[in-house]
């Protein structure tokens, strides 16, 4: 079973269409294995990206060096999945 230990979901607030374009370019970098939960298309709407643990540093450096405003929406994805699983097991019982 695939696990997501340490993966984070980042919420990025683009300030302009230039930044939207930069985020779209990020999407094409397949080696980062980014999973866009909410796509970059409009500065009014935040972009959510699941970032694998091993690429967190690279992505955060990219965002910070390009002055992107972002927050961590989910700190550790696996923790939330585990909670969801426990809840399902409890409901099943």
């Amino acid at each position, binding site marked *: 079973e*695939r696990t997501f230990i340490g993966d984070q979901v980042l919420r990025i607030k683009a300030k302009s269409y230039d930044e939207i374009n930069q985020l779209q370019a990020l999407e094409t970098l*397949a080696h980062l294995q980014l999973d866009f939960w909410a796509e970059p298309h409009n500065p009014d709407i935040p972009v959510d990206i699941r970032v694998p643990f091993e690429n967190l540093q690279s992505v955060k450096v990219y965002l910070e060096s390009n002055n992107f405003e972002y927050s961590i929406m989910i700190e550790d994805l696996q923790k939330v999945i585990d909670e969801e699983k426990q809840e399902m097991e409890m409901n099943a019982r």
Partner: protein
Amino acid sequence: KERNSGTFNYGAYHSLDTLYNTISSIAQDYSSLVTRQQIGTSYEGRPIYVLKFSTGTNRPGIWVDAGIHAREWVTQATALWTAHKLASDYGKDASVTSLLNSHDVFLLVVTNPDGYVYSHSADRMWRKTRSVNSGSRCYGVDPNRNWDAGFGGPGASSDPCSDTYRGPRAESEVEVKAVADFIRAHGRIKGFISIHSYSQYLLIPYGYKCTNPADYTELMNVGRAATSSLSSLYGTKYTVGTICTTIYQSSGGSIDWTYDLGIKYSFAFELRDTGRYGFLLPTTQILPTAQETWLGLKKIVEHIRDNPY
């Protein structure tokens, strides 16, 4: 005590088996109104069940589906709650009664059963179908890039490893073909509503091109009325617009195909987000999501009922 659809816990996420058992229970408990029909079989051999709500013959139909993207669990949960709501409100709620006295409703609770099972057992973040892509190590096709609407155009990937892989050809996915065949064979579907999560949008065609549909003004008005009604319950804010202008250009989507087929009232719902959980929306949010969505859905189906074409 024998299980029935009235005692089921709709405020929880469940396995496919449990969802399918409950679909059967709803059909049994409301047998004069609801029937379960198998419209196809998934790539891995699972039945694709649609619930048909009908009080007569040769009625125009309204289609609602959920869960074409496996990981959007709140959508399957919402659809199941909606199925029970429709069944239990018939004969009690004037609007539902009048709707079902004139139209059939077809509700597909789990559009992508293989993906749903896979998201429960192997990869919680799975979005696609589970078909084998010849010549690739990667599985699955994004079923909402696989419809015959601008297939292969912008906003869909030709890479089988991408989460938005469009597939080798339109309707290559049996799950998509089953629905498309059903819609074509029926011939009188007047509304088509596809339920997704989690961006809080009510979307209208088009996605494969950035031009407005001929019925843009009417669809936008219906959409605004629906989201206004939805928001009245918990204040959840929705954006209404075309896929292309609201999200981004994306080809091969279901509501573009249905609109071009002549189904004027084609909409895609993107259900609520709490801003913290994305696809992992906590179970405490299922019932509020379903309840508010119902208000929006009701506005759309009432408009379809009152504006025959």
